[in-house]
């Protein structure tokens, strides 16, 4: 036997595990993880009473009329916000992407603009816009437009960079200008992915617009906030059911649209059939109707006086409060937010994997969809009742929603993993579970980890705003300072959020590259 029987990876594995423990332990401390709090008599009583009040759901005619209007408002905010985001994303993506360029330029200016747009959570934008434009849906639409515009632009740019650049390069070498080279050389390769991602984002926008109401930007969230504050279980139940229906419907529609993208084009000269024609006609109509329904008068924003008040508002955020005392408080908020996001994502990954394993069974799919359809912020209002205000409530809320999201993604990834290795092990008599660990997981793990890390990037932004409903972290600080009109302090918090989300993005990218 040759002497080389020592596993060369053993040391780095041990070291990696120890490092992870050393980092995770204080984070669990900071998140104030106390599973016992779930079972404390007092907490059980509060949440029990609240949940008991869920039945029967409120079905009064007056309330249902409110609910119907709020639902329409939510849909309209999502659609109008997405339209704005798309209008913003296309030029930004064109500027930011390296695709179709003769020489690779990273365009740092556009890229950092995108980072700022994405890095500040939509709810923070909404909270700010509410102060400029007053309570109402306009703030929600603008917030959604800016954040999602940034996200769409970044992903569009990345998709365009990920396809084969040769066709576009060839076109440019034969004299085509850059936009045309992209249209003819890259879009045909990327169109399906681009459309699919846009539809997926619209689905997310519906969820996001639901929670806009928590900061007074209209829609279902506003109703929910009121119901929760008054501990009106019946109303909360009706609203939650509406949430779920809405999200399921959006899910179904988006699935339908994405399946439509899968079907090969019909054999005819015109690229449009009756279905795509209907869509092209219906889409602008829906967008116009949404803006009309929300009665957003953008012309009012363009007056000199509005401009002056906006400028004053922005100016009041500067200079940032950088006193040592305040920075110390913000640092504690940063640490707590980080802890919420990490603990929440980890718990979600574990629960999601467990729920994804028995994937053929319907009840698990239903549990996943239910977890996913309730936004984090709504979960937080419920978990805060269950374990009391504080970071643990935030981590739990994050975990519940994310478990639904990750569970679904995991199930898809596991379905797509090549079945042969696990099947071979099953045929060699491996006991239950081991074919999965030895055969399926090695193939699927990179994707599972990538999904988890992507989700962590989103969760850090979410963790930053869970504090709006009292679940600790930076959000709590921001909400507090804004209600006291301490704008200089608030802007420090916003800057911290931005830096934190950038840092998490970098770490996540680095980890993903390491795992490859």
């Amino acid at each position: 036997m040759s002497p080389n029987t020592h596993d060369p990876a053993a040391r780095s594995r041990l070291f990696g595990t120890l490092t992870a423990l050393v980092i995770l332990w204080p984070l669990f401390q900071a998140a104030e993880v106390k599973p016992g709090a779930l079972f404390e008599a007092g907490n059980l009583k509060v949440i029990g009473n609240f949940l008991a009040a869920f039945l029967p759901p409120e079905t009064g005619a007056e309330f249902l009329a409110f609910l119907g209007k709020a639902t329409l408002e939510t849909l309209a905010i999502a659609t109008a916000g997405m339209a704005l985001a798309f209008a913003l994303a296309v030029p930004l993506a064109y500027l930011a992407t390296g695709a179709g360029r003769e020489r690779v330029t990273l365009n740092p200016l556009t890229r950092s603009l995108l980072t700022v747009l994405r890095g500040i959570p939509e709810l923070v934008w909404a909270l700010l816009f509410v102060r400029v434009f007053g309570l109402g849906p306009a703030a929600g639409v603008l917030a959604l437009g800016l954040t999602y515009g940034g996200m769409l632009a970044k992903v569009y740019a990345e998709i365009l960079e990920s396809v084969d650049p040769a066709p576009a390069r060839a076109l440019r070498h034969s004299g085509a200008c850059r936009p045309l080279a992209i249209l003819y050389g890259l879009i045909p390769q990327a169109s399906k992915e681009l459309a699919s991602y846009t539809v997926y984002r619209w689905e997310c926008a519906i969820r996001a617009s639901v929670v806009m109401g928590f900061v007074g930007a209209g829609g279902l969230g506003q109703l929910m906030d009121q119901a929760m504050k008054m501990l009106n279980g019946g109303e909360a139940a009706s609203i939650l059911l509406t949430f779920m229906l809405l999200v399921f419907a959006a899910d179904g529609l988006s699935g339908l649209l994405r399946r439509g993208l899968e079907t090969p084009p019909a054999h005819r000269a015109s690229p449009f059939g009756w279905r795509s024609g209907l869509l092209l006609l219906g889409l602008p109509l829906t967008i116009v109707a949404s803006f009309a329904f929300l009665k957003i008068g953008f012309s009012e924003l363009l007056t000199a006086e509005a401009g002056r008040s906006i400028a004053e508002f922005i100016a009041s955020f500067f200079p940032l409060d950088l006193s040592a005392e305040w920075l110390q408080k913000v640092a504690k908020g940063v640490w707590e937010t980080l802890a919420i996001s990490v603990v929440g994502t980890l718990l979600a990954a574990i629960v999601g994997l467990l729920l994804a394993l028995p994937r053929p069974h319907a009840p698990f799919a239903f549990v996943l969809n239910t977890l996913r359809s309730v936004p984090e912020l709504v979960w937080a209002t419920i978990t805060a009742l269950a374990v009391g205000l504080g970071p643990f409530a935030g981590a739990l809320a994050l975990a519940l929603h994310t478990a639904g999201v990750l569970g679904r993604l995991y199930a898809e990834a596991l379905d797509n993993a090549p079945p042969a290795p696990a099947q071979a092990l099953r045929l060699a008599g491996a006991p239950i579970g081991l074919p999965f660990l030895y055969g399926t997981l090695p193939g699927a793990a990179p994707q599972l980890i990538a999904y988890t890390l992507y989700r962590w990037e989103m969760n850090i932004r979410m963790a930053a705003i869970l504090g709006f409903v009292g679940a600790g972290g930076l959000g709590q600080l921001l909400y507090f300072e804004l209600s006291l009109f301490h704008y200089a302090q608030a802007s420090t918090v916003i800057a911290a959020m931005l830096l934190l989300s950038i840092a998490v993005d970098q770490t996540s990218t680095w980890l993903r590259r390491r795992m490859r």
Partner: protein
Amino acid sequence: MSFCLDGVGLTHANGFTALADITLRAEQGERIALIGPSGAGKTSLLSLIGTALPATAGRLEVLDFAVDGRLTAKFKPPSQGSSTVATPLDSRLRGNDSRALRARIGTVHQAPPLPGRQRVVTAVLAGKLGQWPVWKSLLSLLHPLDIPGAQAALARVDLADKLFGRCDQLSGGQLQRVGIARVLYQQPDLILADEPVSALDPALALATVKLLVADAAARGATLVASLHAVDLALNNFSRIVGVKAGHIAFDLPSSEVSDALLHELYASEGQELPTLAGEARFSPQAAANDAAIRAACC
């Protein structure tokens, strides 16, 4: 008796009949080569014996287990001699029994089913998952528990230096040999090899087939290998089974396999082979074989 098929057929859900009325019996320690044109049903036959696919007709016994058509095999008490009629217990073969059976069958797959990101050492050790206790298999994911064993198996296929490499860093031929090393490490009573050397150059193919044969001979294991190269089959295996269009065309000692038989077997494939008229003299012989085997088997 290693395995015994009695009138076994396989019809897919779409109505395509891959195998029909296959009767075949192998004693423990026999080494059999399956030859025949592409699509004849060699892989299907190996899948049936390996309990990967349930037969849709006939009866099947593998390593003292009676496997019924729905892959819910029934245990046959080993005390009963193979010549007596099996009296399957009425209970369905439970997961444990089915795993116990499968742990004794080693399969070399045509496309090695190894996850790209798995390390070679783990891929080889996975051969013993059916035999190891679960805690050991779990622990081995954290740190490989039998490095010398895996290295010894890899050394036999000349890949000891790839022990800690990753499967996606190997070439197709190297990967196929890792698949063989896994089966060598598993040490099964029945080795089923489906085109085990299809990705190897001729010299390596010969050495690898010899290795499989030698391993089976040394341990008294049964070996059934489907091979494309007829010379490899004739020179290394004592018994040759020709498969054609879902039927067994002939089942003879290798010394009795004539050129005429081979031309008949591959007649429909390739331009150079002369198209011989179908001769009836082989069918009666196969039928006689069938009757004898049926009498002895089930």
